[in-house]
């Protein structure tokens, strides 16, 4: 290890300015990946120690303690000690919020017990000058190197780097214990140490970690069976151990650290802001205002950029289409590759905007207040208040909403939110609803006042909320059943967000989306293009080419082209798949042509409209307002002469679109966030089965009630 460049871990409580310090120390772009098995990201970047010397800095997710029974809580102890095959860092930099010393230093005591080579970065020194007059006395009390910094301005960072260099050259990794375990605790600690097999360190601090973390229902990985058994065996109960250890550490902190403080931290600004922001009336007014801005930006403000991206990719496609000879290559480039890239990039405006706003909300401290205000509501879904913003974003688009689940602490909460967010009425469903409602329901007014069509649209939104709530209720009691973890929420002081950190996080998320989810979306688009374009030698009923050439007017030629494309699509693999699907979707009231539309809609729901345009031979260049397409749908007859589209079929189809996972981009982004195909596969299967079942009940139930099928 001596030749490899040093590995430094950056640890600390949440809200200590750790990310800002990470950015200051590294400056360069971080390499972002996922910890195996959990939806938590691992960020590593290169930091310069000076004079051509470099080190790797890994940002450990914010934590209050190294103890915990969940897989994600285990990350900290693994990164800090190298347990489970990782590399033990040569040095740990602990971010300690100087305005909240005692609570922050609890983690420092744990690290000293573990015997890590430790340097403390005392952050928020600008706010703490009045209450911590002599920071160096803290170093003496803790017997540890301390560097006061103001992460926001970078003040003190160079001194911190110097200290890091010194501690790397002359490590001090002697374990330091501030309390003495009772005889009963000593006995069980020795028992765990004695049980440790080769490869597991015989270490008091790790024995204590096992005693406090291992339980019958923990998610810990890589703990040897012997250690696990010894930690669970008799002696003083786990609860007594917890209380003894935690109380002893806090007693030492209260006696040795609290006296160094000259008074309580200055919180008058936070108090004044909170007087408004969590006020029973004004608090909700401001909350609604802020959430309106978040929602409106995704729903409306992103629109010009989205349109621009679509136009640019459209123009690019047109340019290539006209400059290359017509043929398969041309078609692949235009409709597969360019179209696919377009359908990736088109998500960027919403992702950038949402993460910009999430950054501001999180870094200012307001996100904790959102959780505080909305917890009562989100509890209905067995989630906590932090799930609110991702759920709200789902009304615009599931892609940024799924990515936004990262602001939640628990793996299980993130998964549960990801599994129900795609049920929200996203903006891509609107064209489908508009088409169906416009084509099949009369523009009448109920009791002369309420427009039927508008009412149906509102009903679809309500339906999606009810279904998402119910799905969360069911999933949280079955597939994602987890021990009910109590909400313990820190309400940090308000602080001005640092724009550079927000922008850096935003671009890092966006590039991650392009790199990882983007490639999957592109692959899916090309696959779908191939399904709907091949085989090329479909037997046509008429000699369209000759007729087009002989057409008298351009209109006639366009009609013939549309009819030819329709026949080709129906003969394609996708068309045949639509046929094959017919027995499955017939009980829902759908014919095989709708089946082809459903396959096309998998690229993105709104593609259903243009696919139906092609299927019905009115051309792919239609939108949901198209009168031709609506008329064509109304006049479409089944083999028995009855209309295909009745209001009942419309309801069934809308319910299907509301519930089915008709969106490969959602699957791609869930795959990226969860690090595998397991959860996206589950999402697809459960949503599509649910859609089928509900549409079945609507269609068959409606027919039983005597509505025209």
């Amino acid at each position, binding site marked *: 290890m001596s030749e490899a460049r040093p590995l430094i871990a950056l640890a600390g409580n949440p809200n200590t300015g750790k990310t800002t310090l990470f950015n200051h120390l590294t400056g360069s772009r971080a390499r972002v990946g996922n910890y195996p098995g959990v939806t938590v990201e691992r960020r590593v970047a290169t930091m310069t120690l000076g004079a051509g010397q470099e080190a790797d800095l890994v940002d450990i997710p914010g934590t*209050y*303690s190294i*103890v915990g*029974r969940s897989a994600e809580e285990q990350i900290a102890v693994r990164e800090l000690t190298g347990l489970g095959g990782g590399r033990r860092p040569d040095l740990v930099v602990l971010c300690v919020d100087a*305005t*909240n010393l*005692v*609570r922050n230093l*609890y983690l420092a005591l744990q690290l000293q017990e573990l015997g890590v080579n430790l340097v403390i970065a005392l952050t928020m020194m600008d706010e703490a000058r009045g209450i911590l007059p002599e920071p160096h006395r803290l170093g003496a009390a803790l017997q540890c190197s301390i560097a006061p910094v103001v992460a926001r301005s970078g003040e003190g960072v160079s001194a911190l780097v110097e200290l890091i260099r010194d501690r790397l050259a002359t490590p001090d990794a002697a374990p330091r214990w501030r309390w003495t375990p009772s005889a009963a605790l000593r006995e069980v600690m020795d028992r765990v140490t004695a049980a440790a097999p080769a490869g597991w360190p015989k270490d008091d601090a790790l024995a204590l970690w096992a005693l*406090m973390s291992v*339980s019958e229902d923990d998610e810990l990985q890589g703990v040897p069976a012997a250690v696990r058994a010894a930690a669970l065996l008799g002696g003083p109960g*786990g*609860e007594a151990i*917890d*209380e003894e250890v*935690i*109380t002893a550490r*806090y007693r030492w902190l209260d006696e040795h650290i609290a006296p160094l403080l000259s008074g*309580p*931290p200055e*919180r008058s600004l936070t108090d004044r802001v909170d007087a408004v922001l*969590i*006020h*029973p*009336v004004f*608090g*909700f007014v401001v909350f609604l205002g802020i959430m309106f801005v978040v929602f409106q930006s995704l729903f409306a403000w992103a629109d010009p950029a989205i349109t621009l991206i679509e136009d640019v990719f459209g123009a690019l496609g047109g340019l290539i289409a006209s400059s290359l000879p017509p043929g398969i290559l041309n078609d692949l480039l235009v409709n597969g590759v360019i179209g696919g890239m377009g359908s990736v990039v088109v998500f960027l405006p919403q992702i950038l905007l949402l993460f910009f706003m999430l950054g501001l909300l999180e870094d200012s401290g307001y996100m*904790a207040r959102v959780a*505080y*205000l909305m*917890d*009562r*509501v989100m*509890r209905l879904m067995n989630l906590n208040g932090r799930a609110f913003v991702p759920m709200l974003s789902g009304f615009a688009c599931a892609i940024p909403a799924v990515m936004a689940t990262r602001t939640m602490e628990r793996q299980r909460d993130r998964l549960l939110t990801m599994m129900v967010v795609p049920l929200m009425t996203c903006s891509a469903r609107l064209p489908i609803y508009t088409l169906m409602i416009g084509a099949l329901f009369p523009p009448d007014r109920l009791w002369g006042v309420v427009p039927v069509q508008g009412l149906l649209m509102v009903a679809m939104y309500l339906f999606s909320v009810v279904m998402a709530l119910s799905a969360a209720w069911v999933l949280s009691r079955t597939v994602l059943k987890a*021990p009910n*973890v*109590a*909400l*313990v*929420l*820190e*309400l*940090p002081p308000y602080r001005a967000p640092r724009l550079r950190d927000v922008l850096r996080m935003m671009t890092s998320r966006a590039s991650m989306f392009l790199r990882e989810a983007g490639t999957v979306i592109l692959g899916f688009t090309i696959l779908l293009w191939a399904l709907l374009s091949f085989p090329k030698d479909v037997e046509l009923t008429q000699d369209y080419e000759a007729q087009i050439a002989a057409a008298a007017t351009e209109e006639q030629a366009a009609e013939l082209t549309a009819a030819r494309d329709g026949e080709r699509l129906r003969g394609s693999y996708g068309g045949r798949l639509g046929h094959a699907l017919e027995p499955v979707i017939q009980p829902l009231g759908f014919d095989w042509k709708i089946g082809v539309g459903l396959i096309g809609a998998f690229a993105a729901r709104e593609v259903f409209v243009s696919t139906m345009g092609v299927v019905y031979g009115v051309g792919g260049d239609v939108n949901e307002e198209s009168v031709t397409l609506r008329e064509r749908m109304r006049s479409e007859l089944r083999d028995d002469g009855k209309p295909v589209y009745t209001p009942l079929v419309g309801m069934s189809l809308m319910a299907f679109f509301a519930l089915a996972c008709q969106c490969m981009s959602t699957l791609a982004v869930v795959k990226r966030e969860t690090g595998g195909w397991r959860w996206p596969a589950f999402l697809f299967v459960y949503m599509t089965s649910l859609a089928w079942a509900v549409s079945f009940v609507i269609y068959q139930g409606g027919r039983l009630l005597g509505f025209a099928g």
Partner: protein
Amino acid sequence: MAERHQTDEIPLASLATGATALLTRIGGDRAFRRRVMELGLVPGSAVQKRKTAPLGDPIELEVRGCRLSIRRAEAEVVWVKA
């Protein structure tokens, strides 16, 4: 809850808003106890009940200068002595 009548302890949830009291013991499951204790809510510390969220839950506390929020149901098993 037989113990309740033997002492002058009350649940944190019943403490008047704005009042400060001494924490005596913490009930609930092990993970919850450990989590709140590690955040500084150990027996013997002074805890202030600051506010109740507008929808009636959760409640806001201050302990060692740090603001925390826990749900009312959990505040029923955290015992304090005025």
